[in-house]
């Protein structure tokens, strides 16, 4: 049996993802296995509850995914009960969703992914004058003086000297796969620090529309904040002006920092344009509805399935199709009433735990058997990738002009062929491209919102079907949401006014799923095969590809250890450290 490398956990946020990879004699990965090592189970908490309150529970599944799980939940209930929301409410939701993308992607790039490419310690060797010249040549961003970069170096030096390098705790500093000149390392470290300040501006939209701090408030049928230009407690002129400033701040940071940084870093890692593709199959549920929550005809991101890289033939998937949308558990620690080889549509989904793995702590998973708490969602019995690359390809293939322009610009700037988009580099570039598209869309939705308000359309809530006696005895619904990490779906079954079944198929379940009933690998597993590791004891290359998917395991696996007792890294709390 060949040696298998184990990385556990791999995410920097609430990680409970475990990757096992086996290498051939040339240190090239020939098999990879992805496992969620924490059980999911929020479905069991929701059963029997009031559907109107489901969002308040689903939003607690993960601190990063608060907004997306809330929206998917209220949309599922609105679908089940056939509730249309007012156009104004829909525009406010679109603003919140677009803001979430911009905030999340920028933080992912600088705080999670950049450290795979940027050597923080090497930034101390940079020449501040040269760094300033580079900054001035790539962008009009205001922090561009030699003294500014000297200041950043002093901060980094102070952290290193204080022994708190753990803030940038990456044991791989100095790895030969870090290729950036010191000056670009310094540039990126400076923006890592600036992004922390920028997020204050970026989150103002949520603070205003969410109403409640720090957990935002949601409501089935619309948005909770009323519009009244003359009221102190409603959406008024002053708040609209704060939102407008926040949008400017977001667009400026994306245009002047994020995109130029991506284009400055990428040329040193062009080999990743040929590494890490994986499946070549992509799925989106679509996002940014037009007139109301069910107007999918004007989706900015179309609802699409792309198979085998074929951008000429995109199909529209129906999430309610019992035959095509299915979850398998052949290699997952669950059991179905009808056996381990069948697939179930989420409305018929079952959440019965069946842990058969080794007793932790263990050295290796039993990959021939069940080996993950993630199920294997499949579309038409095929593994699919979800996320920014899927969305950008869907927009590109459907002829979205700005997306085409941006993709072509990036390809031309980096001088790589279109096939390079199917890769780790392509995934990372796609994230930046859609951030630009969605940041600009903020301005569009804002202008539309102001126009609606000016026209007197200030309704933000449709209460016609708020009371349970107006509901049908039985109903089922699908709540879509293109989360920053990819297609998210909540499927709800309502009976007698209560939740009878609730299944969440989250992006990381699609991407991080184990093998299915046909032995087909999930996206992470497929993407790692063929990657050569320069230093297998420091598998930086694996991190680069897995992080390019932006895994969020807390969403996918929900916080309970397989053994049912260990706190492990179960939560963002002080409990983790004080072991």
């Amino acid at each position, binding site marked *: 049996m060949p040696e298998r490398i184990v990385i556990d956990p791999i995410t920097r946020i609430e990680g409970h993802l475990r990757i096992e990879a086996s290498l051939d004699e040339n240190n090239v990965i020939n098999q990879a296995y992805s496992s969620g090592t924490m059980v999911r189970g929020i479905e069991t908490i929701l059963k029997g509850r009031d559907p109107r309150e489901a969002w308040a529970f689903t939003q607690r599944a993960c601190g990063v995914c608060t907004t997306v799980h809330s929206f998917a939940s209220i949309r599922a209930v609105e679908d089940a009960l056939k509730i249309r929301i007012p156009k104004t409410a829909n525009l406010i939701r679109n603003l919140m969703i677009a803001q979430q993308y911009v905030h999340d992607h920028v933080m992912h790039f600088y705080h999670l992914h950049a450290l795979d490419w940027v050597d923080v310690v090497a930034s101390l060797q940079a020449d501040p004058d040269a760094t300033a010249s580079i900054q001035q040549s790539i962008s009009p961003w205001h922090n561009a003086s030699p003294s500014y970069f000297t200041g950043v170096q002093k901060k980094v030096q102070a952290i290193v000297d204080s022994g*708190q390098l753990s803030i940038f705790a990456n*044991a791989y500093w100095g790895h030969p796969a870090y290729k950036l000149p010191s000056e670009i390392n310094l540039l990126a470290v400076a923006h890592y620090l600036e992004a922390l300040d920028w997020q204050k501006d970026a989150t103002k939209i949520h603070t205003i529309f969410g109403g409640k701090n720090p957990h935002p408030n949601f409501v089935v049928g619309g948005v909770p904040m009323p519009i009244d230009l003359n009221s102190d407690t409603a959406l008024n002129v002053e708040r609209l002006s704060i939102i407008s400033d926040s949008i400017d701040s977001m667009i400026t940071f994306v245009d002047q920092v994020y995109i130029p940084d991506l284009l400055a870093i990428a040329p040193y890692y062009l080999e990743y344009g040929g590494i890490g593709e994986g499946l070549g199959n992509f799925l989106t549920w679509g996002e940014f509805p037009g007139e109301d929550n069910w107007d999918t005809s004007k989706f900015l991101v179309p609802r699409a399935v792309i198979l085998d890289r074929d951008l000429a033939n995109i199909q529209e998937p129906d999430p309610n199709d019992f035959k095509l949308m299915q979850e398998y558990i052949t290699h997952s620690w669950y059991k179905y009433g009808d056996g381990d080889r069948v697939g179930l549509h989420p409305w018929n989904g079952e959440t019965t735990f069946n842990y058969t793995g080794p007793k932790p702590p263990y050295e290796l998973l039993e990959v021939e058997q069940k080996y993950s708490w993630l199920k294997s969602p499949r579309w038409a019995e095929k593994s699919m990738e979800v996320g920014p690359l899927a969305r950008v390809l869907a927009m590109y293939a459907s002829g979205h002009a700005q997306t085409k322009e941006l993709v072509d610009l990036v390809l031309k700037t980096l001088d790589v062929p279109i096939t390079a988009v199917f890769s780790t580099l392509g995934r990372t570039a796609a994230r930046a491209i859609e951030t630009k598209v969605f940041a600009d869309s903020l301005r569009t939705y804002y202008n539309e919102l102001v126009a609606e308000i000016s026209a007197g359309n200030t309704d933000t809530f449709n209460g016609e079907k708020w009371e349970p006696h107006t509901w049908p005895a039985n109903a089922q619904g699908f709540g879509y949401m293109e989360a920053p990490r990819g297609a998210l779906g909540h499927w709800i079954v309502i009976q007698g006014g209560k939740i009878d079944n609730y299944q969440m198929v989250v992006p990381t379940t699609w991407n991080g799923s184990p093998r299915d009933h046909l032995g087909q690998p999930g996206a992470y597993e497929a993407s790692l095969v063929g990657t050569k590791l320069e230093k297998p004891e420091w598998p930086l290359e694996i991190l680069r590809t897995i992080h390019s998917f932006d895994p969020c395991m807390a969403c996918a696996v929900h916080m309970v250890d397989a053994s049912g007792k260990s706190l492990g890294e*179960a939560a963002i*709390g*002080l409990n983790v450290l004080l072991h």
Partner: protein
Amino acid sequence: MPQPTRRVVLGLGNILNNDEGLGVRALELLGTQPGLPIGFELLDGGVLGLNLLMIVEECSHLLILDAVDAGKPPGTLVELRKEEIPLYTGVKLSQHQVTFQEVLGLAAMRGHLPENLHLLGIQPMDVSIGLELSNEVQAALPQMADRAKSVLQHWT
């Protein structure tokens, strides 16, 4: 950056995991106590992670309520003064999570750690899926709320 002035009690943890959410539950209990000193915001921080950095950095006074694994019997009240709170969690294979310690670590690195910082914790018993507190933790909750109130009084 303006002088930090917020006075905040922050309840942390995931309420979907029984005792894991005890910080949030303790915060709710604290909110019902008569005679609380005025001027403090009671905030449910859940598991918001990095999103809490902005709030932390705006605080002159920050009291944290959370589940703490200190290797003590379940239900034991644990108290840490500012200088005793570890600012950063350990790493595994170079990766880490954005834990609340890291949020505090980032605030410290940026020179914005609240001047007055205090942590109250309870050793959890059961962090499996569910919305209930264990008897041990439930019994310790009033003690935590009492202690929180006296910390706030001391800060007033």
